[in-house]
């Protein structure tokens, strides 16, 4: 046992049936330290955090919290011991007010009657502590934007006296300027001695907030140390286990005739057109309008027939039917009148092999795959349908580096070898610069002119996206 550590996990192992999810993981976090936990999807980060929260009991290994043995039976006990998890899907009750969410489970009450004054006082206090007094304690949570809801969850963690705050991809669903506010808030929490475990795919972000880092790969700790001593490239190398080759491949592309000309978008054969912009600028809505979702224009079924396919940014709710098999999801847009398992299997194997999807069989439930593998199937649906125009909305959000590389490779093949057209919406500028031929910026619902990728850079795109260029 090391003195002075807030959290210490040593030699944690966990297996599910034949799968070894964790194979000896060590993690140590000091009080007031922000510790980045990085690794590709499937590396074991979520399992490790479930062990920490009490959702899973480890097969082997020891956990210590402030020096005392810590073996929670369930997440409730973990929470009572001071471990607070903030997941990507927030766990708030949307119909309750901010203050009711903050005190839920520890409501001040006399003989069962709520002490509304005390509730207000506590909620106001924790929101003030976070310097987010602008959130009204009596506002309904469902009406708050995601970034605010996240703050409410952190306030709730504080109100029960959390010692370790675990944040899982906290910036994936909030706008950039809110992310900056969040980082400032985390700094204040660290100053109060709270420890933070920070999980993110964005290495730059980890460098911004974390003091130390631990890299997981295939269920093992493969590296770690002080953030200041490591370059992003070194960390990515550790995550991948080998040098990442060219992340954004770019073959010779020869744009052809205009395939799609709607809503101010002019998309040619053999090119990738990117749309940059801030979250909320209306990029997703634009793609949805083009594809005929939300009840405007032709129906999506007609779009499929015209050879236009769409990958939704919301993989879980809209992109895939998580309860169905890989084969069903893959062929959903173009089902045979009679569904034969043999034909389903042979058709899906082709794409499973082509995109290196890790799965047990084509008939496995797609919800059981990792995010990266799910996303490959979402893309493969368009390939199977053999559409000419691919509308991709944040196609690499929340997936691991390896899967990203394969998706980029596939996009390049599509436009250079098969003469397809890709319209790509992304909030990750390096990705746009790496994959697109032309990039247009959307600002408050208005799409700017598309410029060749050689004429723009990260700065100019951000400049235009924030609306500065127009002035």
């Amino acid at each position, binding site marked *: 046992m090391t003195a002075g550590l807030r959290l210490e996990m040593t030699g944690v192992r966990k297996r599910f049936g034949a799968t070894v999810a964790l194979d000896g993981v060590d993690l140590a976090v000091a009080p007031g330290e922000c510790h980045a936990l990085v690794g590709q999807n499937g590396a074991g980060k979520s399992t490790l955090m479930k062990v920490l929260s009490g959702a899973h009991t480890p097969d082997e290994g020891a956990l210590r919290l402030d020096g005392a043995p810590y073996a929670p039976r369930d*997440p*409730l006990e973990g*929470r*009572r011991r001071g471990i607070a998890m903030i997941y990507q899907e927030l*766990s*708030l*009750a*949307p*119909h*309750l007010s901010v203050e*009711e969410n903050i005190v*839920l*489970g*520890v*409501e001040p*009450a006399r003989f*069962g*009657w*709520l002490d*509304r004054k005390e509730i207000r006082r506590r909620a106001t206090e924790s929101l003030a502590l976070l310097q987010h007094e602008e959130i009204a304690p009596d506002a309904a949570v469902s009406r708050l934007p995601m970034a605010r809801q996240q703050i409410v969850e952190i306030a*709730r963690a504080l109100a029960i006296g959390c010692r370790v705050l675990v944040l899982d991809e906290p910036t994936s669903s909030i706008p950039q300027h809110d992310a900056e506010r969040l980082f400032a808030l985390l700094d204040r929490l660290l100053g109060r001695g709270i420890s933070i475990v920070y999980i993110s795919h964005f290495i730059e972000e980890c460098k911004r907030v974390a003091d130390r880092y631990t890299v997981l790969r295939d269920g093992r700790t493969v590296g770690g140390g002080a953030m200041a001593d490591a370059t992003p490239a070194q960390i990515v190398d550790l995550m991948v286990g080998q040098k990442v080759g060219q992340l954004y491949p770019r073959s010779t592309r020869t744009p052809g005739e205009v395939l799609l000309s709607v809503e101010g978008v002019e998309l040619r054969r053999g090119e990738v057109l990117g749309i940059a912009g801030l979250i909320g600028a209306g990029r997703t809505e634009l793609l949805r309008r083009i594809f005929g979702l939300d009840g405007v224009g032709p129906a999506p079924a007609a779009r499929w027939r015209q050879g236009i396919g769409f990958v939704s940014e919301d993989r879980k709710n809209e992109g895939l039917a998580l309860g169905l098999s890989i084969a069903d999801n893959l062929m959903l847009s173009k089902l045979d009148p009679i569904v034969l398992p043999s034909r389903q299997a042979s058709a899906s194997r082709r794409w499973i092999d082509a995109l290196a999807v890790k799965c047990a069989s084509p008939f496995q439930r797609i919800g059981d795959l990792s995010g990266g593998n799910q996303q490959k199937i979402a893309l493969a649906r368009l390939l199977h349908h053999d559409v000419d125009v691919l509308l991709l909305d944040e196609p690499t959000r929340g997936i691991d580096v390896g899967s990203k590389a394969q998706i980029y490779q596939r996009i390049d093949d599509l436009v250079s070898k098969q003469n397809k057209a890709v319209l790509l919406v992304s909030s990750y500028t390096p990705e746009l610069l790496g994959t697109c031929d032309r990039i247009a910026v959307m600002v408050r619902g208005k799409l700017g002119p598309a410029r060749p990728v050689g004429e723009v850079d990260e700065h100019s795109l951000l400049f235009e996206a924030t609306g500065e260029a127009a002035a």
Partner: protein
Amino acid sequence: MSARAWLARLSPLIGLAGVFLFFLIAVWSRTGRNIFATPGNLQTIALQSAIVGMAALGMTMIILSGGIDLSIGSTVALTSVVAACLMKLRGWPAFPAACGAILAGGLCGLLNGVLVTRLQVVPFIITLGTLLILRGAAKGLADEQTVIPAASALDSLLDVGSVLPSGVWMLAMLAVGVALVLRHTRFGLHLHAVGSNEAAARLCGVPITRTKIQVYTIGGVFGGLAGLLQYSRLAMGDPTAAPGLELDVITAVVIGGGSLAGGEGSVLGSLVGALFMTTIRNGCSQMGWPNYRTEIVAGVIIILAVAVDRWRHRRGL
């Protein structure tokens, strides 16, 4: 509260007013005189709403918590038979017999709650089962006949007194009580939380199982109270009474703003919903329409009312 929030809260009332006006004018123009908005007919509407309203109080809490109770009609029939049997066969006076019926209702609800939480089967299926079980129990207890005890104080719950019968006053007081519980108690907050996001509530240490068992039991108690009103209306225990009542009750809650997905619902809304349903039935019969037409009209209006409400919700109005 903003003007918009008030408007949202009052919208079931506006709908009720609309239906009321419609029938007022329709009946007047058809018969040439006002026989709809008379004190006597309004009283009738209040009486007819009382049974649905009473059961809807419990159902509001259950639906708020994300559950549903399809067995409420059977509970009402069973408890009215229990009250009748206790008086006729055991010779109990009215008050203890009433308590016995309420207790029986509570036990029916307890059964639902325990089954839902222990078997981990969705309440729709569990209460579909108990709908049959309790209806069968009522028929068995009554020997498949109506049970008619001697006249007692229970007969007068829905008798017209000075202004409104005692059963309606009872309903009004209990409604205020339930509204206070929902707004101001820990139990009420837990109901909202469980219905809104059960996983989050569990994580925060809300006792999910206990809360659910409690809410179904309370729902059963209100079923027992509605059973007493049912008894009082006919002055007998009828094991085949209140067929399809569960649909009226659930509809009342949903028209009043309750969401079958949980987390939403209000006492005032549910009572207005109950009045809404009764007003339609009453208005149709005042129009002299045959029964089949009443049913079709009621069905159309239910769909319209809820569709308009959801549309308003989506628009954020």
